[in-house]
């Protein structure tokens, strides 16, 4: 069983949603990336989503764009991100790592080459924002053949037939983008999520996570009541931006453990 599948098996027994923090590899620095991944795990992350920096992050709001620009200024390439994951795997063999990014760095490396290297580095899943189902036949075959889970986005605008298409193609989990807009937007429609999630869960034989617009304990808890996973990104990067090298781990760890408490208490309440 893949690391992602076993993580969700365990969560099912524990009757709680997964907490999936996101940050961009190489931000705030190359040296801090792997230690920060360990900090997230200690603070309660069930899966780590690591952003691969790209020069033109069209689906991201200003916060993640800035993180991407800072990482690129430090020359963080996809190859470098894979090295970071391999480094993380030396001391953590259980926490799943999902890479999230855009198609072109992968195209430049070559899909087959990337999938093989990612598998060897210990990556578990890959979410490529700009490879939607209709362009993904060859992509899904390649990543699956290399033991990686292809993760897809669904949106409030996704039709039933697209949901079915994603259900056929995806493995690991499916990521529901909870609002119209880019990452970091502030208006999560909790009632829309509560209404849509059961429909998606019925149509998709995989856990369904929710992200985009979750920024505090209240929204995390509201989402955790209905979703199988809660993804938090921009809010974590803002915490990174506000930290110094001395306070980084304490502040980000504190934020994530607070979110974890919120996720844990969501279904107990």
């Amino acid at each position: 069983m893949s690391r992602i599948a076993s993580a969700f098996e365990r969560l099912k027994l524990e009757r709680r949603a997964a907490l999936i923090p996101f940050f961009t590899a190489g931000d705030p620095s190359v040296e801090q990336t792997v230690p920060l991944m360990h900090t997230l795990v200690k603070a309660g992350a069930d899966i780590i989503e690591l952003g691969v920096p790209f020069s033109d992050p069209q689906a991201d709001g200003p916060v993640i764009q800035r993180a991407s620009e800072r990482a690129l200024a430090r020359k963080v390439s996809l190859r470098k991100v894979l090295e970071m994951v391999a480094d993380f795997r030396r001391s953590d063999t259980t926490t799943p790592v999902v890479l999230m990014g855009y198609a072109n760095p992968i195209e430049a490396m070559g899909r087959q080459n990337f999938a093989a290297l990612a598998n060897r580095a210990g990556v578990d899943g890959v979410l490529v924002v700009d490879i939607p189902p209709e362009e993904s036949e060859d992509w899904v075959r390649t990543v699956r053949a290399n033991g990686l889970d292809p993760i897809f986005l669904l949106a409030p605008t996704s039709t039933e037939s697209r949901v079915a298409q994603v259900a056929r193609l995806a493995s690991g989990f499916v990521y529901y983008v909870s609002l119209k807009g880019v990452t970091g937007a502030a208006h999560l429609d909790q009632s829309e999520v509560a209404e849509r999630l059961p429909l998606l869960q019925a149509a998709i034989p995989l856990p369904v996570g929710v992200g985009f617009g979750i920024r505090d304990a209240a929204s995390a808890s509201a989402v955790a009541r209905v979703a199988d996973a809660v993804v938090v990104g921009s809010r974590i990067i803002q915490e990174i931006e506000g930290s110094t090298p001395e306070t980084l781990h304490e502040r980000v760890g504190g934020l994530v453990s607070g979110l974890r408490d919120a996720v844990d208490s969501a279904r107990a309440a």
Partner: protein
Amino acid sequence: MKMYDLPDARGHFGPYGGVFVAETLVRALTELREAYEEVGRDAEFQAELAYELKHFVGRPSPIYFARRLTEHAGGARIFLKREDLNHTGAHKVNNTVGQALLARRMGKKRIIAETGAGQHGVASATVAARYGMECIVYMGSEDVARQSPNVFRMKLLGATVVPVESGSKTLKDALNEAMRDWVTNVENTFYIIGTVAGPHPYPMMVRDFNSVVGKECVVQMPEMIGRQPDAVIACVGGGSNAMGIFYDYIPHEKTRLIGVEAGGDGVETGRHAAPLSAGTPGILHGNRTYLMQDEDGQIIETHSVSAGLDYPGVGPEHAWLKDSGRAEYAAATDTEALEAFHLLCRTEGIIPALESSHAVAHALKLAPTMDKDQVILVNLSGRGDKDLNTVSRLAGITL
């Protein structure tokens, strides 16, 4: 050549094109594709478009024999397709009229656009005013500075110009920002893309709306000289004016199709905007095409004296025409384009856009290698009023 019927149903031109966007945009693109297919079959829509092109844009645009330029070059006769005479001063309005009518048909009241040189922004602001729509134009802050007359024009026309400060602060970043706006406001907003790039159906739709240029030429050239030209030359940034004039010439196999990219400081220096001449295929802005990128797949900064050509990608149909051999692509440097700019001013009394000057520059190189009875048709895609500040600065002329 067998019948040319690209793109396929999913927007592919061979290996290029496609729909490489986040899920959040797929529904909007599907709706757009369906609405566009519908108006293609709708005689009333086509009649209104034809009326607008004639009475608002001023079509057909003439073809002009550049006698003194021809004498100067020595060789093939050079003709100019005068898209600079269109209302708003460039070919861009052919497309914005079409898309604005489509937006109205779809019930969208808010228009967004990206712009580099500002020509597409002006053309979008113009049609928004004409049809009573709200208009937001995203423009890299670098371009806002170097194309200030067009910024002023957009404001006069009632549009809001949003300077984009992210990335390289040029056209590609404006496109990113417009996409972000569209994702957020997809229900009431129509995104008018200005070039033959972006996700399907944009490359096809923008080509179709601009193909009126080539359609006219195919009729006008035989009227003027009794036959079709030996070569058609157009500048290529994203490539909309080039696709516009090339498209109806694709079946005319004896006519060479030549796209001219921005060579900047020279293609060999790496400081240019010529992905077809010196780039590699990749995925950006919703389609697979040739890109200016580093070995890690990051998009690199481009350089051109012309803001409208300063783009690291190119329309996917050009990528296909290059690979298939039906079109050839060359580059003209900043210096060559500026020389052509001044030469056209002095020999013909026509002030061309810096973008179009790249096409003129290549014609000046090609003409002397051809016979005097041969014919070159250059798409003079826009006029140069917007470039006066740039040229005066470069030429050291004080206004």
